[in-house]
């Protein structure tokens, strides 16, 4: 497996984004969640053992630029199609986690003929009054592991790996990165992660697999059922001992579920 990382011109150079690419075989585009994605992500590696993975960073993440011109759901949806065009791909498998799942589902609903295989991993985008999604924007860093992970101690080790918040340089970089990322994510998720997707789900024609961590405390598993009610023929795969960061806690189980899309 050879991994590459490069900048890609998108939409006639309106934006330039970072792409991680690895593996071989059928092309698969992975859209990351609000927390972003690093090149050394074990989940990317797991995907790349089976598919030819392209993981674009949304503007506002890493050195992807152009976030100021992406103001709403439609702009992000069209941008993501522009990315697929710029990569020269034809109807790749489309997989997204959390916010990325919301974007992938929007893409499949907006252009149902363009998305034929869809993997939604704990996607955002719906709202159930009986199962409110907590307000992640107002959480303090130390509150996050218990929300995001089945095993908070493991989550805390993952989230603070090598970090030293006492170092002002690190702190500045952390705050700026976090601000850029969540400023972008907020356009889709703040204050409530609902931009009308439920009214469009019926348009999705893709073969769809929905994957959910059984102990997801951010977007509870009830949302998995809601997505499956909305998308005709969608199949729900529940992963045990995994929270919202199921791609970190059980990457192999997620890959195993996605194999159904082949």
């Amino acid at each position, binding site marked *: 497996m050879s991994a590459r990382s490069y900048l890609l011109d998108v939409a006639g150079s309106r934006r330039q984004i970072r792409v991680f690419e690895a593996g071989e075989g059928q092309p698969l585009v992975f859209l990351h969640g609000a927390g972003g994605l690093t090149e050394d992500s074990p989940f990317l590696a797991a995907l790349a053992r089976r598919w030819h993975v392209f993981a674009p960073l949304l503007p506002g993440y890493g050195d992807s630029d152009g976030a100021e011109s992406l103001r709403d759901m439609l702009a992000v949806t069209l941008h993501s199609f522009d990315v697929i065009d710029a990569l020269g791909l034809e109807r790749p498998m489309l997989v997204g986690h959390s916010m990325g799942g919301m974007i992938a589902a929007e893409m499949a609903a907006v252009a149902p003929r363009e998305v034929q295989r869809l993997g939604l991993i704990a996607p955002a985008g719906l709202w159930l009054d009986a199962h409110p999604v907590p307000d992640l*924007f107002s959480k*303090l860093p130390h509150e996050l592991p218990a929300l995001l992970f089945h095993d908070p101690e493991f989550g805390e080790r993952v989230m603070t790996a090598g970090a030293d918040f006492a170092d002002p340089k690190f702190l500045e970089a952390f705050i*700026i990165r976090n*601000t850029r990322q969540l400023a972008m994510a*907020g356009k889709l998720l703040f204050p409530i992660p609902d931009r009308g997707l439920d009214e469009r789900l019926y348009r999705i024609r893709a073969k769809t697999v929905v994957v959910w961590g059984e102990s997801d405390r951010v977007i509870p598993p009830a949302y998995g059922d809601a997505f499956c009610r909305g998308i005709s023929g969608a199949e729900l795969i529940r992963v045990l001992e995994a929270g919202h960061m199921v791609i970190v806690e059980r990457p192999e189980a997620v890959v195993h579920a996605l194999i159904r899309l082949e």
Partner: protein
Amino acid sequence: MRFVWFNLMPWPDLPDDFREKYRSVWVDIPSALYDPVRGHEVYNTYLDQLEFAETVGFDGLGVNEHHANAYGLMPSPCLMAAALARRTSRAALVVLGSSIALYDPPIRVAEEFAMLDVISGGRLVAGFPVGTSMDTNYAYGRVPGTLRERYAEAHELIRRAWAADGPFVFNGRYTKLRYANCWPKPVQKPYPPIFIPGGGSIETWDFCIENDYNYSYLSFFGYLRARKLMEGYWQRVAEMGKDDSPYRATFAQIICVAETDAEAEKLYGPHVSYFFNRCLHIYPGFVDAPGYRTIKTIQAEFLSQMARPNIGQAASLSWGELNERGYIVAGCPDTVRQRMEELIRTLRVGNIICGIHVGNMPPEKTRHSTELFARKVMPQLRGIWKDYESDERFWIHPLPKRVAPAPIAAETVR
């Protein structure tokens, strides 16, 4: 020098164990803590105090906007200013202000401000704050990443609505009006003086300086902490080639005056403590939604090491420490005069927003402190910027002949 008497209008009955029982005075504080019957008395008392301030010589009466906030009970500052417009006759109505990015369509603010200016005969000072993250993002649901763009567009619409002969077409990104047409228009031409309340973001400085708007630094942390920030502001004024009239700047300060320094502590200590302990008990997660501040501002804060103080840190300070560090300026008239003079000269400000009602201070004490400040402190400070007295750009221009409210009908009949 000009002095504005300002009341945040805090809820005075937050329980003693408020800090232990609740995580925030703002955003998610249970509304069951509000009692409308008590509220009736509280609002009317606060309005009485503002009206009293005019009678003892304050130049302006200040109100502002907060939402879901138990220390700031004015979701609509214009309602309060409207009440004051009829019962006062001279003082400026300083609305600091309407958070213009929160109104749909924002021409509503142009209309309401124009109404206030017309009713009061040209006494309005129009404040255009962005609004805090608690107000705009958390309580009003505005997306942080597009808030400032909305603000800029709302500002453009309001300025055009006041300046242009309507109707005109306004095709904004967030507001589209085929018939933008502001009835009434303000009395003050080309528009009322505009104050921009800010917390220290550098884009706000440039915006104020370019437009010759007053920059109002509203901080609860006093003038000693504000020095560095205001130095940055004045440096920017110079860089942009503008004059250094102190009337370009306003500072808000908590002030407590008594006959002696010891009496000040005895009289006002508990209410200052109420303010810093209960009113400023804000959950840190609500202070700054990601995207609310710009990257440029965050970088500037790190560069200058003036990262904002933790809003809750003052809770542990004693009366003496709060006074020493300038969070409050408290004491006998002479003490207060000396410190206010230091404040005014070091920050180079032409207007002071005087926070004389503090926390749960009862009306008698508020009146006592207000009166002492007006009679024994204010006159000594009046002349500090006498070289700039002719600068009228940053203050109201009321009509020379204004009508007074007629006696109400029932009284006339009797």
